[in-house]
Structures are given as structure tokens and as C-alpha cells.
């Protein structure tokens, strides 16, 4: 079975020295993949390289078997990829509803079905649908951001530190939604700082350091690995 | 100076020489002096934009201020004005202005007696308004009186033209201080529009303050720091020779000024001051974090650049012997300088000088070339039995505006760093 997304020995960076020095990642539609690692390991860079936000200089990225290396975002969204950036991930001057509509920009069909699914998933948002996204709390913004990304009905959702800066309550809620989204057949690849919690529900874990794969396994395998625990999970 | 620079300046010399063969010594000597003045102005813009990264769309304002200064200092004294009640009335204006200033300053200190916040702002607005009313109540009758008498305007001071140039620099510095205080630290686009606004206001003032500048009535003839052609003719020189000799002497004076400025700026820019300016320009946030007082340094550089523009503007007016506020246009006096700097190479003094000399001659020649072309075309159309081009003269003289636009577009596209680029570091 072809993986949903496959990073094959990818080398990438922002123009200077490469930040990723040949990494390999493979995710199936049923997977929740979690990338962990120290600061500067290239975790976010890996996500951005998939989404065409920086220059890939070596290796290849394939989506559903199709080579998508260095394609730009507006070509990737129609294929079924969606990305939630870590920061500035909502349109602050637009209402929650408009934010979600923007996520469905590429679709020509009726959005109302997907909209109500997302409002069901995040009931908080339904109440605030006509409020500007800039007025929401951090957790609610993260929900808007995820909702926006789901509006294009992606096959693969890329999440850059979705729990950053959130209270434990919101963090748990976001993680629960991630698992639920995955159950509907959407592959997930996320970068997380809260490594322990994230590996707890991950089907695949990737430990990156200095732009290279250090450990790969199921979430549980990594949690159980004493070396991973010692170096990357804070003992 | 590296080899590239030398080659470009060599080519420039040849360009002027060839133009001289075609247009005669008198005309090319005039263009050369004017071009030198523009080189001084372009250096000023290079300091502001090339070194400091400060946008200035108000060059015209500095040039007009400089021209006004040169006129007022060097034009002969107007005895009719000094014999009238004018000086006394203007004295009252000065007192009114002083009272207004005291009011405004006092309102600004209102927090010392416990008035703060909204109330202080209200008080300040009232103070500004009161000051304005007091000033207007004195200036309006004074202006009406002066313009109604035979004197017409206050006249000049009859001093040496070089003093006028210096005063032009000083006055431009004062204006730059006010602009800088208000708009430095704002984003580039705001600085651009603020400077364009100030320069338009300066133009409106100088054009309409007939009592001070004689407005569109123009003032002439002005004195030169060297004997003028008419002085040389009085001394017995042939007319044709007198223009060349006078202008060459003027050229010498300006060349000394330019060389001095260039030497000082080059030295300063190569030293620690230049390093600091580059640091601020390329990353003012980092520079501020390192403890540099970014805003005062920028103010300094903005004023310094404006001084050169003021001096250049003064020299141009002195050279032309006439101050005509109606002749100043943003295209000729602001955008032209930008084209010079962008084509020459922002951030490089030699580039700025080269750009000024090269673009000025091209600008002036394209006028003649277009005239020639259009006349030819029109004549040909007539011989073909078609109607000729109406207003050939005025239309073809607009051709150079088009050429200027094409030149800067091509420069931005193909040599974004200029023909003689900055040697330190690349910016976009």
C-alpha cells in the first residue's frame, strides 16, 4: 500500500545551510504521526518542506505516490493537504465563520455540510461564529485554525505545535479532536513539544535531532525506549 | 575607487566631451555646473537613503528652501522697505509669534501644575489655536501693508552668495529637524508621504508669500561668488567667452565644495560612524537592542543629507541668477534625484555622483534629442500631406519625463544595486 505521504531523504532549508539533512518520514491515512525533538532539530522545517513553504534541495516528497516536491501551497491544498501554522494561524479581522469559509476557498461545492460538521466538533465556535477571530482566546483560536484547515476536506492534516501556549484543559481537548479527526480517515502529522502526551496516542513517532532521524517507532515504543526517555522526554 | 568606478567616470568624461562638441562650450559648461550642483544634492539623498535607509520624497522642499536662502542673503537690500513701516510691523509679528510660542510651550508643561491626560491635550489644542490666531492677527495686516507699498517685498541682505549657500544649508537643516522629529521612526511609506507633504507645503508657502519671496514675480539677477558673465563683459570680455569663463570659474568653486563634502563623507562612512549607520539601516531592531540610539542617529543623518540638498539648491539658484518658485516641480526636483541615485548606486558616494552627472546630461540632452526627432517627424508628416504634430515644442519637451521613467524602471529591473553598487553589503 502506498503511504499517504513519504519524505524520502529530504534535504531542505531557508537558502543558507540546509536544516534538514536527509530525513525520512512515512505516514498512512490511518496514522497519527508525531515529530519530537530538541529545539532547532528541524521539526517545523520538516512540515514546511512538505507544504512547499521552503526550498527542498535534495530527496523527494511524495503524496499518494505523486511527487509533490517544491510544489506551492495553492497546488497542494486541492490535492488534499492542509497545514495549521503554529503562529498567526487565524484571520484576526474576520469572523469565525469567514475564517472557516476561507479554508474552503478551493472548493466550488456547497460548504454548509462541512461547516456544520466543524461546528459540531467545536461547539464553542458555533456560539462565536459571528465574532472576530482576533477576539478569541488562544484555545479557541487553535480550534478556528484547525477548523479552517479541515474545511478543504484534506486527506492529510499537518499541525505545527497545536498545543503551544494552551492551558492543559484546551490541550487535552485539542488532542482528543486530533484523534477523532484521524478516525474519520484523515492522516495526521504533527510537531509537538508536549512529547509524552502526544506519543501516548501517536501510531508513529519520529525523533529528530540536527536535521536527521534519530529514532523511529510507534508512540509506545518510543515512550518505552530508555534512551529516548532520557534524552528527549526529560528523563 | 576601483576599476569599475574609474571606467565609468572615464566614459562619463567622454560623454560630456562628445556632448560639448555638439552643443558648444557655453552650453556644456552650463550643464556641467548644474550637474555638479545635482551631484551635491544626490549625495545628500545618498546619505539619507543609501546610508540611513530613510525615505525622502520631499527633496524639492529642501531645494526651494536653499534657493530662498541664497536669494534673501545675496540679493541687494531693498531701501524702500527699510524706510517704510514694514520692519516695525514685522517686529510686531515676531513678538506675536514669540507670545504664541510661549503659550504652546506653557501648555506642554501643564502637567507640572497637575493638568494631565485629556485635559492637557485639550489645553494644548487651545494653546495652538490661540497662538495661531495671535500670529495671524499680526501677520495678515503686515503682509497687506508690505505688498501694498512700493517696496513690494522685504528684499535681500546684500551679502556674499556663499553665505547664502551656508544659510541655505542651515535653513534646510531646520526644516529637516522638524520633519524628522515628526516622522522618523514611522514606517517607510509614512515617511514618504510626510516628506512629500512638507515639500508641497513649502512650495505653496514660497510661491504665495510675495512679501518674503516675491512669489511668482521672481527675483533676479542674483550675484555670483565669482564674476558673472555680465560682469566679465563689462570688463571687456567677448560675450561668447564671458559665459564660458564665468561658468568655468563657478564650476571650480562648486568642485571644491563637492570634493570637500565627498572627502568628509567618504571618511566618515568608512569609519565607525558608517558601520553604525549600516547596522541601523540593515537591522534597526538589532541595533536598538545593542544600545544604539537609533532615532537620534537617524535624525542626524536626515538633517545632514538635507543640508547638502539645501546647499545644492542654493547653488542652483545662484547659478541661474533667478529664483522662480513657480518653476519647481516634483518631477524635476524630487524624482529626478531619485533616478540619479538608483541608477548610480545607492549606498555608494561615487555611484551617487556618477548617477547625478550621467542622468542630468541625459535628461537635458533627451530634451534636445526629442525636439530633433519630433520636428523631423512632424516635417515628414507635412511632406506626406498629413497635418504636422501640433505644439511640437511643448510635447517633445515632455519626452524626457517618459525617458526618465523608462530609465529607472530598467535600472530597478536589471541593475537593482546601481551601476556603481555599494561595496559593503547587498541589500535587495
Amino acid at each position, binding site marked *: 500500500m502506498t503511504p499517504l505521504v513519504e519524505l524520502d531523504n529530504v534535504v531542505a532549508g531557508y537558502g543558507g545551510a540546509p536544516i534538514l539533512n536527509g530525513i525520512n518520514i512515512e505516514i498512512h491515512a490511518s496514522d497519527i504521526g508525531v515529530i519530537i525533538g530538541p529545539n532547532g532539530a528541524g521539526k517545523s522545517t520538516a512540515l514546511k518542506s512538505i*507544504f512547499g513553504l521552503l526550498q527542498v534541495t535534495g530527496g523527494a516528497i511524495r503524496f499518494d505516490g505523486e511527487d509533490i516536491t517544491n510544489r*506551492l*501551497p*495553492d497546488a497542494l*491544498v*486541492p490535492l488534499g493537504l492542509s*497545514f495549521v*501554522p503554529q503562529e*498567526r*494561524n*487565524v484571520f*484576526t*479581522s*474576520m469572523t469565525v465563520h*469567514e475564517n472557516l*469559509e*476561507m*479554508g474552503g*476557498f*478551493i472548493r466550488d461545492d456547497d460548504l454548509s455540510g462541512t461547516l456544520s460538521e466543524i461546528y459540531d466538533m467545536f461547539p464553542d465556535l458555533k456560539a462565536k461564529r459571528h465574532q472576530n477571530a482576533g477576539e478569541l482566546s488562544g484555545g479557541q483560536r487553535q480550534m478556528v485554525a484547525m477548523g*479552517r*484547515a479541515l474545511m*478543504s476536506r484534506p486527506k492529510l492534516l499537518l499541525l505545527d505545535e497545536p498545543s503551544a501556549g494552551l492551558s492543559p484543559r484546551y490541550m487535552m481537548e485539542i488532542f482528543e479532536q486530533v484523534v477523532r479527526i484521524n478516525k474519520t480517515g484523515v492522516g495526521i502529522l504533527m510537531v509537538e513539544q508536549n512529547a509524552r502526551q502526544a506519543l501516548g496516542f501517536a501510531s508513529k513517532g519520529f525523533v529528530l535531532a540536527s536535521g536527521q532521524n534519530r529514532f523511529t517507532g510507534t508512540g509506545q515504543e518510543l515512550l518505552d525506549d530508555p534512551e529516548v526517555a532520557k534524552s528527549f522526554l526529560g528523563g | 575607487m576601483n576599476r569599475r568606478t574609474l571606467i565609468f567616470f572615464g566614459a562619463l568624461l567622454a560623454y560630456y566631451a562628445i556632448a560639448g562638441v555638439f552643443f558648444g562650450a557655453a552650453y556644456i559648461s552650463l550643464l556641467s555646473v548644474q550637474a555638479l550642483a545635482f551631484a551635491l544634492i544626490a549625495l545628500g539623498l545618498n546619505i539619507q537613503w543609501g546610508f540611513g535607509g530613510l*525615505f525622502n*520624497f520631499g527633496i524639492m522642499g529642501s531645494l526651494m528652501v536653499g534657493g530662498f536662502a541664497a536669494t534673501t542673503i545675496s540679493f541687494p537690500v531693498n531701501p524702500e522697505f527699510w524706510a517704510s513701516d514694514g520692519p516695525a510691523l514685522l517686529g510686531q509679528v515676531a513678538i506675536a509669534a514669540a507670545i504664541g510660542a510661549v503659550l504652546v510651550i506653557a501648555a506642554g508643561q501643564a502637567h507640572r501644575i497637575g493638568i494631565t491626560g485629556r485635559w492637557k491635550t485639550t489645553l494644548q489644542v487651545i494653546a495652538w489655536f490661540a497662538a495661531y490666531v495671535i500670529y495671524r492677527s499680526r501677520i495678515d495686516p503686515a503682509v497687506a501693508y508690505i505688498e501694498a507699498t512700493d517696496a513690494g517685498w522685504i528684499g535681500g541682505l546684500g551679502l556674499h552668495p556663499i553665505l547664502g549657500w551656508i544659510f541655505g544649508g542651515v535653513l534646510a537643516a531646520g526644516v529637516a529637524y522638524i520633519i524628522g522629529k*515628526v516622522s522618523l521612526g*514611522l514606517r*517607510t*511609506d*509614512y515617511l*514618504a*508621504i*510626510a516628506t*512629500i*507633504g512638507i515639500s508641497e*507645503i513649502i512650495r*505653496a508657502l514660497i510661491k*504665495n508669500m510675495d512679501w518674503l519671496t516675491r512669489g511668482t514675480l521672481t527675483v533676479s539677477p542674483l550675484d555670483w561668488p565669482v564674476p558673472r558673465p555680465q560682469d566679465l563683459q563689462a570688463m571687456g570680455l567677448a560675450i561668447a567667452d564671458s559665459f564660458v569663463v564665468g561658468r568655468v570659474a563657478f564650476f571650480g568653486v562648486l568642485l571644491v565644495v563637492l570634493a570637500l563634502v565627498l572627502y568628509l563623507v567618504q571618511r566618515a562612512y568608512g569609519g565607525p560612524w558608517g558601520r553604525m549607520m549600516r547596522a541601523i539601516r540593515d537591522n534597526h531592531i538589532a541595533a536598538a537592542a545593542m544600545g544604539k540610539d537609533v532615532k537620534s542617529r537617524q535624525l542626524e543623518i536626515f538633517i545632514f543629507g538635507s543640508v547638502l540638498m539645501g546647499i545644492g539648491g542654493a547653488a542652483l539658484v545662484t547659478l541661474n541668477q533667478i529664483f522662480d518658485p513657480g518653476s519647481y516641480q516634483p*518631477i524635476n526636483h524630487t*524624482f529626478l534625484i*531619485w*533616478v540619479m541615485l538608483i541608477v548610480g548606486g545607492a549606498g555608494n558616494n561615487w555611484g551617487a555622483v556618477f548617477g547625478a552627472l550621467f542622468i542630468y546630461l541625459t535628461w537635458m540632452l533627451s530634451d534636445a534629442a526629442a525636439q530633433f526627432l519630433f520636428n523631423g517627424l512632424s516635417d515628414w508628416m507635412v511632406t506626406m500631406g498629413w497635418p504636422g504634430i*501640433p505644439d511640437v515644442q*511643448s*510635447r517633445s519637451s*515632455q*519626452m*524626457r*519625463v*517618459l*525617458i*526618465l*521613467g*523608462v530609465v*529607472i*524602471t530598467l535600472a*530597478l*529591473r536589471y541593475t*537593482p544595486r546601481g551601476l556603481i553598487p555599494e561595496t559593503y553589503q547587498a541589500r*535587495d
Partner: protein
Amino acid sequence: MNELIFFFNNVVVSGLVLGSIYALGAIGVTLVFGILRFAHFAHGDMMTMGGFVAFLLASLFAAWGLTLPVPLGFAVLPLTFVITAALALGIDKGFYAPLRARGAKPVTLLIASIGVTLIIQGMIRLFFGTGTYNFFEGAPKELYRIEVPLEEATRTINFSQPQVLLLLVTVVTVVALHLFLTRARLGKAMRAMADNADLAQVSGINTALVVRVTWIIAGGLAALAGTMLALDVTLKPDLAFNILLPIFAAAIVGGLGQAYGAIAGGFLIGFAETAAIFNWSILLRPFRDALPEFIEIPNNLALVPTEYKLTVAFIILVITLLARPTGIFKGAST
């Protein structure tokens, strides 16, 4: 009463007219800034260009013997809109797009807009000379007089036909723009891109398309403003360069990137200008007899002499920059 009508004609009517022109111009400036992040200084010249396009079309139709109950310059507005929008697209493709593709900073585009200014000015002057043109050659502009149903009122409230048409155009434009920005998918995408260009790109919004739409709107509105301004006064090559400052002031006062702010800013500046140059002593004259002897009403109580009208926009601009640099409607801050 007559004095009040005089005031109405000179401040309210003129303010509305001036404000409409400024608003139409400022919307274009603010949209271009919101999407492309640079101050488009050639916008005034785009307005002039639009005015000349309309003039050419109107002359063409007049030469064919077409006569209409409205000025021809007004009748050709839709066509002018389309042509100027196309020219604006062409200008972007020829001048700005290559620089953007190179990754040039916004300030480089700002400098490039000087080049565009010079080229448009040069072209217009080359083909039309430096003289002024009148849309109403020979025939005077129609004047609408509204009687005030009061006994003491002998004066009438006056609108010229172009002024009425201008107000009409402005209202239609503002409503259409509002509907576009809040209802249409592309309009919302425009707001999204102005808000957060990176996120718009990530969302799969076709940013190149949004840029094109922005130029179409900016160019089209510039054409409307330029033509209506030329109808109200006369057409000359430096028509719009002179109102560049008020237009930018309006856009900045309203908050760069904010379309509604630009409209508000345009009318604010328009009314401020007409109020500042109005001779307020006219309003005081009826009370002349009621005042004690020693108070004499000066003949001229205008706040600013007409020749310094420009300072009004500038002072409002400076106050805004000092007190609230992001504008009344909180524009882009970076």
C-alpha cells in the same frame, strides 16, 4: 438664512464632492497597500490616466454624433472602468510583478512606482500636451437649484450635474464594494490576504488571482475618481498629482489596508478642507447689528487661506501619525 445656504453650498456640498473624490482614490491606495504592502505613489497618475481614457472615449462618441441627456464623460464610465482596469493590470505585469517575483522588498516597489508615475505622466503629456481639456466644450454644465422653502431665503442650494453624478457614483461604488468584500468569495479572500498573506496562501487561496482583482478594483476606481474629478473641474496632466497628498492622508487616517477607513478618511479630509478655507465671518454677519460697537467682524475669518488648502490634509495626517499611527480603523502596523 442666505448665509446658511451659502455655507451649505460652500462647505457641505463642496465637502461631499471633494470627499467623494478622495474616498474613491483612497480606497484604491488602501487596497493595494493591504494586498501588496507598498504605498502605490502612481495612484494619482492612474486617476489622471482614467480621466484621459474617458476623455478620449467621450470625444470619439461625440465625433460620431452621439448625444445623451447625461455628459458623455459620464456615459462612458463603464468602458473607462474596464479599460483603465486593464491598463492597471498591464502596469502590474510590466513593472511590479517582475520585482515581486525577484522577492524585492516593498520599498523597491515604492521606488518602482516613481518610474510608473513618470511613464504615465510622460505618455499623457506626449499625446495630450500640457494644456487643459474640458468635457463640456461650449455647452455649460447643467446646474440643479433647490429652492429652500423659507421666506428669507433668496439663494438656492446648488449642485452641478457632474456633482450629482459623482455622489451617485460614489454611493453605488461604496455599496458595491461593501457587498463584494462581505459577500463574494473573492472579496473575502481579499480581506483574508490583507489580514494575513501567509495564512491566505496556506489556505489555498489563489493569491495571484487576488492580486489581479485588487488591481482591477484599484484601477477601475481610479478611473471613476479621475473622470468625475475631470468632469467637475477640468482635465489636465497634473490633475491627480495635486490630490495625491489628501488621498494618502485619507488612506492613512482611515488605517492603511482598511477600505471602510479610507472612505471615512476621504470624507473627513474633504470636509475639513472645505471648512478650513470657508470664510466664517459670513455666518457672523447677520449678527453684526446685535454686537456691541467695539467688536468688529473682520472681513476674512477663514482658518486657512485658500492657497494653503494642502496644509489641512497634511496637518490631519501628522496628527494621526503622532496620536494613532495605525489610523482610526487600526490599519496594518508592520
